[in-house]
């Protein structure tokens, strides 16, 4: 557990994707089965056990620490799991009880050995009565005899207490290598924790947690508490964890994705294959994920070399791309699953769609919210994303819908080798056969020239999208003869997004970036003008940290350093007056009302599209412009 905890600890601080991969792959290489398998399960969210409630953790710490000290500590640290992990009393189980007025535990020559940090210390037999009361409760006590020397040994003790770093190669836990007091059981392995939690009764949980917390070090306790409360939040997606596993055997992560649904923790067969010790596990899942085909963004110059007759156009719907798969299990029953485009199983968030997937097949499509036959905007769909609990009310108010783009499989047949035009025929038949109002066909957009398509893209409402035009974010172009290929193959599919919204805003604050960018001011808060008490003033409307070139980053960084008015830690206030300051052209995809922002609006996907060195800040946009854009969108969510 401690080694897994070190991994989580390091991952939580590491901003770079590649470095995260290296850390995780390194862990898989170093740690044996089955611990690494459970680690992979933890990182991919594949562990299932009843989570502990924060109240339980609070009770545990309350029984062991002084409430005032806990309060002060919690205020300072700001995170319950972390506070408890850090202040959990070491080793001695009765430690906290003396706070509550129980008699202190009898002194034992062995006590504290395992947690002593310094060879120069030992239990004090100080003659002072007053201090004796104190000493009995603390575990380590300064050696009084060192007062006349200043020469006491400074060598670290071999009985070094809480291991904080390093770790031993080859295993998750190093207890067998460290001399220990026999009263201290070895810290649990990740496997111990996971397998015990699976079968543990509710009443046994507090006692078991307390025992583990006694045995682990600070980082181990932190990780354990994150694990049992179900809140890892270390910035690692399931996809990233699988990619790290794939790297162990130089495999394509897609291969893991394909067999993943048939695998169960601790994935012994997977690691055996990755290490070349066994054949690739066979996916026996009746509803497996298939790697998704993606499109390239089209540039104006690309059109010259493309023949309109080779392509079919469809609307690009502003929802989330999914794969809906149904298949028959061994007993002939239908199993249905919904996957994100990276292959994460998101069926649990959309139980209302499952009954509609009643025929074996694999649909590639867009998940949308459709109310009264009308497709809602992404803002509306967002209410249904990342939900752990899906209430009946949510299902009723935000009815989910699948708009089908493609058919990858039909019953037992793999259709991916067929040309797009043929797959489309199969799709039309399949959707008709399904006959379900929650699943429909994504209509094609008729066109005979690029000019005609340009017109359709500019005005989807009158080109067939009708009232759903608001939910269209551009057009897709698909070659009639393109097979369904994983990844982003060249020249097959193109996306032609509608133009983003653009505003001119003024740079107000700049913050240093992370990792490679830690010496650059690369995160920018920008604002627009609005009427204030003392005339016009800038109000922040968003934050962006990409969109610019490396060269532009250097220019902005230089500007920030030379025009700082105030510094607050990593944040700099940058001059922003009507005649002094930097105007940024900001592109974004949409707006949402947001009570969290002073301006009342939040942008979707904002990025810096141009630096307007030529424009004085006073000519930047006003908040009213954004509010006008907003009105149409807001009405929908509240409907």
């Amino acid at each position, binding site marked *: 557990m401690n080694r897994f905890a070190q991994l989580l600890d390091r991952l939580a601080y590491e901003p770079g994707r590649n470095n995260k991969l290296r850390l995780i792959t390194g862990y898989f290489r170093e740690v044996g089965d089955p611990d690494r398998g459970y680690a992979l399960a933890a990182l991919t969210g594949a562990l299932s056990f009843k989570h502990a409630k924060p109240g339980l953790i609070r009770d545990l710490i309350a029984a062991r620490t002084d409430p005032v000290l806990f309060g002060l500590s919690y205020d300072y640290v700001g995170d319950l799991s*972390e506070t408890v992990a850090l202040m959990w009393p070491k080793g001695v189980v009765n430690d906290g009880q003396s706070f509550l007025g129980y008699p202190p535990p009898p002194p034992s020559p062995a006590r504290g050995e395992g947690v002593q940090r310094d060879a120069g210390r030992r239990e004090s037999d100080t003659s002072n009565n007053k201090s004796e009361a104190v000493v009995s409760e*603390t575990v380590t006590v300064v050696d009084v005899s060192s007062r006349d020397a*200043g020469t006491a040994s400074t060598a670290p003790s071999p009985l070094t207490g809480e291991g904080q770093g390093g770790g031993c190669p080859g295993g998750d836990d190093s207890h067998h290598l460290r001399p220990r007091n026999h009263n201290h059981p070895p810290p649990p392995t990740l496997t111990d924790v996971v397998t015990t939690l699976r079968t543990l009764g509710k009443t046994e949980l507090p006692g078991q947690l307390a025992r583990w917390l006694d045995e682990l070090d600070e980082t181990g306790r932190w990780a354990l508490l994150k694990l049992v409360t179900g809140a890892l939040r270390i910035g690692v997606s399931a996809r990233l964890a699988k990619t790290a596993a794939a790297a162990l055997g130089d495999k394509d992560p897609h291969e893991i994705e394909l067999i993943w649904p048939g695998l169960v923790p601790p994935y012994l067969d997977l690691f055996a294959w990755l290490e070349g010790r066994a054949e690739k596990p066979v996916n026996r899942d009746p509803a497996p994920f298939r790697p998704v085909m993606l499109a390239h963004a089209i540039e104006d110059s690309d059109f010259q070399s493309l023949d309109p007759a080779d392509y079919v156009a469809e609307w690009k719907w502003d929802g989330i791309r999914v794969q809906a798969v149904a298949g028959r299990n061994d007993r002939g029953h239908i199993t249905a699953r919904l996957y994100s485009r990276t292959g994460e199983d998101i069926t649990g968030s959309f139980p209302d769609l499952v009954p509609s997937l009643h025929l074996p097949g694999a649909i590639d499509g867009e998940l949308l919210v459709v109310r009264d036959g009308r497709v809602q905007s992404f803002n509306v769909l967002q209410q249904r994303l990342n939900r752990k609990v899906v209430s009946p009310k949510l299902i009723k108010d935000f009815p989910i819908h699948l708009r089908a783009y493609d058919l990858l499989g039909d019953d037992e047949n793999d259709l991916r080798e067929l040309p797009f035009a043929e797959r489309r025929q199969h799709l039309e038949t399949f959707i008709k056969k399904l006959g379900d109002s929650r699943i429909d066909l994504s209509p094609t957009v008729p066109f005979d020239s690029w000019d005609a398509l340009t017109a359709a893209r500019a005005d989807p409402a009158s080109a067939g999208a009708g009232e759903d035009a608001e939910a269209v974010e551009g057009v897709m172009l698909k070659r009639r003869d393109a097979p369904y290929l994983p990844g982003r193959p060249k020249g097959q599919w193109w996306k032609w997004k509608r133009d983003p919204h653009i505003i001119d805003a003024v740079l107000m604050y700049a913050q240093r970036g992370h990792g490679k960018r*830690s010496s650059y001011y690369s995160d920018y808060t920008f604002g627009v003008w609005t009427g204030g008490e003392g005339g016009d003033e800038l109000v922040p409307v968003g934050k962006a940290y990409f969109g610019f070139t490396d060269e532009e980053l250097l220019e902005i960084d230089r500007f920030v350093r030379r025009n700082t008015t105030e510094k607050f830690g*990593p944040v700099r206030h940058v001059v922003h007056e009507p005649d002094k300051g930097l105007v940024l052209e900001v592109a974004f995809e949409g707006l949402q009302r947001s009570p969290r922002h002073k301006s009342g609006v939040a942008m979707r996907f904002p990025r810096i599209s141009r630096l307007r060195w030529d424009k004085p800040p006073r000519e930047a946009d006003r908040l009213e412009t954004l509010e006008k854009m907003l009105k149409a969108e807001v009405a929908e969510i509240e409907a």
Partner: protein
Amino acid sequence: MRPQDILLPTAAGLCCKPGGFHIDPVRPVERAVITHGHSDHARAGHGAVLATQETLDMMRLRYGENFAGTTQAIRYGEEIRLGDVKVKFHPAGHVLGSAQIAVTCKDTCIVASGDYKDAPDPTCAPFELVPCDVFITEATFGLPVFRHGDAADEVKKLLASVELFPERAHLVGAYSLGKAQRVIALLRAAGYDTPIYLHGAMETITHYYQSRGIALGELRPVKGTKKTDLAGTITLAPPSATSDIWTRRFPDPVTAFASGWMRVRARARQGGVELPLVISDHADWDGLTATIAATGAGEIWVTHGQEDALVHWCKTKGLAAQPLDLVGYGDEEESETQLASEAEA
């Protein structure tokens, strides 16, 4: 005699009226007795300064020859009379030359411990416990969440990272007086024997440590080293420099920071630290409470840091305790910032 008649907090610092001196004064005074060389404790411009030879040397290095009117060096264990009191210096284990100052007047003994730690440190004399009636303790890490663990394990973490990312440079933020040298010594103790690189602001004080017989192995200045040659190396730099333009001379640097504050994630993240190393030159919560208990003092004065929690703890143990309102301490980092920018210029 009441303890507050011997030592009293004033705007200039802790004042000993019967002895006619201040301890670690933050403003220029006639006679100053100084615990250690960190700039928040050792300031220039006093009339006379009494401190250990190392502390005096460090002040000279930092402020120049004329940092005080006159100076007097005192050894650990040496006792001298100042006015109506006796003053004795004891090792504080904080940094090289750091001392606790025992002030005895009649039969009352007060120990002003300055900054101290009870953990082992190969670069300075170990902390010595001094029995006393009133113990003045710092409280930098005076919350039970601060438990520093073994510094050697943190260094292992750093070395593991260097091994995992051999193409990147590792930048370790560390206070240039004390922490940097301790980290280097710990690296050497862990068997790391390749050259270690230093930021310009680290050089003077680190060479001083070496001149006092502390073995730190081969050290090289970063300045003048090619970017590609810094791959896989470890560089010590003042904390403020690790997020500065200065870092652009390193290949894809990993930012580490050696400090007791690194125990708390929010603190580490705020500073953009990717590899927090919990290595502190201050006593942690267990060290503070164990030391307070072991001095046998019946009265505890708590200063700079998290006074509330430590005062509360003392009271639950039946000890008289009060926060001592002294200002101007605990900003080692601030003074480092100046150093760093000076060196950069």
